[in-house]
């Protein structure tokens, strides 16, 4: 229990430091930090609809955070999550408007499945490149992101463009009502799906044989070789699941929020998964509060701008500061000596360029 508490220290401290630093910036730019933060909080949690909006914003973040965290367990930095997310969102949109006249009970899961498959396959490609040619997943991930962005741009501009009269934007038609997520008691269905996904991922990492293999590969690749773990299969399997999670994030975004695929709507969500994964200490369940926090900041930014007159870019700055303090946790540990920091499986974010040694 104490250990569990300790692992909260770094993220909590980082968030606090980020808000303090952000407060100084607010003050310097002539605003009242306390007022701004109160407005932010009200915008995020002030009433039911704002809470609902916060959860809605948190949902794709949970999925992408899970995608990044799951891959990190195997020592893979899935920076390609953005591309997998885009293909997932696109595939779900296509399934959403193309497949017609089937009831919701089938249409919703069908579109989700389409999104997960698209993201998963795209992840698998990067996993296979890593497994068979040793190509570093960060490099291939960045390249694959470009391909995904431009491919989806092309697809919505030409074959799948919304041809309805009056539309001048490059985007797909709206998905059918049968594939849209309903709210369950005010909570967006997508959020519930995200929670289930997080628990499932946690369960796999902790209790599945495959989860053990992933951790062995991630924490000691040589020991994995020694003990006969099939490293290639593990790398590919990990990227398949990680990609499917990012794809699920895309599907949920399409089916729950945007209701069509429109370029520019979702950029950055995949990358924000990195912030979430790190803030959540790469723990599948830690990702949920992390995503809610960032989701709240996004949801409350409007209110902050409206009632405290703060540019909502400040939210991006605070988010960046959080990421900074989480990754540079040494700073935190230096600032607060005497605290026993949790020591778990350390992340290796700065290694891995020259292969796994």
């Amino acid at each position: 229990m104490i250990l569990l508490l300790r692992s909260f220290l770094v993220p909590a401290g980082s968030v606090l430091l980020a808000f303090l630093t952000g407060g100084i910036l607010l003050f310097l730019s002539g605003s009242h930090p306390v007022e701004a933060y109160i407005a932010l909080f009200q915008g995020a949690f002030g009433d039911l609809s704002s809470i609902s909006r916060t959860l809605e914003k948190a949902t794709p973040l949970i999925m992408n955070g899970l995608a990044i965290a799951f891959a990190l367990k195997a020592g893979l930095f899935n920076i390609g999550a953005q591309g997998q997310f885009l293909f997932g969102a696109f595939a779900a949109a296509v399934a959403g408007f193309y497949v017609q006249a089937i009831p919701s009970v089938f249409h919703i899961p069908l579109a989700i499945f389409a999104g997960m498959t698209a993201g998963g396959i795209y992840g698998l490609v990067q996993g296979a490149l890593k497994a068979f040619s040793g190509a570093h997943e960060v490099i291939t991930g960045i390249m694959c992101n470009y391909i995904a962005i431009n491919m989806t741009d092309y697809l919505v501009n030409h074959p799948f463009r919304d041809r309805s009269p009056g539309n001048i934007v490059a985007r797909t038609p709206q998905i059918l009502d049968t594939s849209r997520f309903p709210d369950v008691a005010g909570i967006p269905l997508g959020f519930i799906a995200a929670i289930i996904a997080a628990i499932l991922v946690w369960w796999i990492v902790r209790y599945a044989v495959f989860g053990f293999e992933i951790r062995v590969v991630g924490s000691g690749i040589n020991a994995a070789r020694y003990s006969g773990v099939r490293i290639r299969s593990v790398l590919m399997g990990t990227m398949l699941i990680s990609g499917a999670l990012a794809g699920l994030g895309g599907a949920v975004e399409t089916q729950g929020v945007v209701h069509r695929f429109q370029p520019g709507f979702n950029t950055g969500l995949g990358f924000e998964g990195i912030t979430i994964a790190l803030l959540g200490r790469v723990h599948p369940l830690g990702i949920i509060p992390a995503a809610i926090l960032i989701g709240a900041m996004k949801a409350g930014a409007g209110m902050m701008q409206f009632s405290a007159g703060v540019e909502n870019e400040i939210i991006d700055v605070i988010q960046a500061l959080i990421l900074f303090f989480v990754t540079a946790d040494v700073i935190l540990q230096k600032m607060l000596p005497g605290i026993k920091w949790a020591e778990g499986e350390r992340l290796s974010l700065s290694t891995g360029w020259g292969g796994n040694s």
Partner: protein
Amino acid sequence: MDGFPVLELKGISKSFHGVMANSGVDFKLKKGEIHALLGENGAGKSTLMNMICGLLQPDRGEIFIQGNRRKIQNPKIAIQLGVGMIHQHFMIVPGFTSLENIILGSEPVTRMAIDFRKARKQIAALSDQYGFSIDPDAVTEDLPVGIQQRVEIFKALYRKVGILILDEPTAVLTPQETEDLFRVMRRLARKSVSIIFITHKLREVMQIADSITVMQRGAIKGVLSPGETDEQSLARMMIGREINMISNDRSAGAGRTVFEASGLSVNSSRGFEAVSDVSFCVREGEIVGIAGIQGNGQMELSEAIAGLREIASGNIILSGKVMPALHPRKMMENGLAHIPEDRLKYGLVLPFSIAENQILCTYYRNPFARFMWRNRKAMLNNSRELMDRFDIRAGGPEESVKTLSGGNQQKVIISREFSRNSIFLLANQPTRGLDVGSIEYVHRQMLTLRDKGAGILLISSELDEILSLADSILVIYRGRLISMAGKEGADRASLGLMMTRGLEREK
């Protein structure tokens, strides 16, 4: 002023997180003497030396150098005071020449550039002064380990070191290189360099030291000279109890062949043939020792056997079946147990718990897995039983192996490998870096396994280990095996010669 202590420690104490690493240590180093500091791993030798080198600060106590009380806040001050340490892992830049390495960090300069001519002269002068030399233009990574070490010594001398600390300098050396090092050490001592020689090899202490300080559990157990003691009593002092030097006094039973390598060739990572056409077999209840200096193909041979490296040609036969290459799991399922050379890298997943490391090779099987899911309860029960049976000292099954001592880490590996009912053990340097107590433990376990009928292939560069355990001895030299008819024909001298020169007579 002969006999005046150049270094004196009075009442040095140091603790880490409440654990006493040094308590009230007094130590005296006389000018021009070779002073052995003897103790098991964890006895506090390194902590003590790190305080002299300025890497750590004592909690209590005083350090006197040349009779003056000094505070050594950092390694720079230590060097100014003439204290230099040569670590087990050399601190040299592999791609640099000897000259560059020696002057690195204290280069003589002209106005704009490094004055290599002056440096060269200085090194030549040092060579004359101390009576041993190196090639200043050789690239260090191409040099044998013993010479690299000499470069390190030169580096210290170049900084005008009067107190030289050698941290287990012979651990990586061949018998011949060790002799050379001892010769250099004696020369330095004659030229008034005082040497602290950290080790746990008793024979070397008796051979080279002028005086011996024995440490146990952070305290000084005694100061003696080699004349008034012997290896047995030193060992007793060091461990704090009686130990028996293990030896294999049972002749090998001629059992069934459990393992065979036939015509085995293996390439190194750089592509050249590291093991050439090697054939041998290991029978039930037999320990076959492969002696040799590191880097003669042992690593490639053992990796090929373990299924970690491609085989260029030839076969590996385990209990009568030809094994596919690159299939470690198949090897293990057919009865291989493996103590890898680098236990931290290959043998253990450091952030994992003891229990998880103990199922590293069987996690996918009953009872540790049912269908797709792991059975944590079975894992923990297994761990508790093994910790008890193999005397692993730790808080519990869920403690991370990272925090264990080297001896206990090796016990975790042994508990895993020896509990699988294996018929063939591949042990590559199973006692490297372990203290005497743990070495005794590992050897005893290996003999027990052998007595139960397993065949053992012991690869080691420790001659003593091979001589005391093996039923038959092979020497590996440049990737080829030289058979030593039996144990009787093998003595230290001829083995040592063969390790360094192969079978030159026959050429």
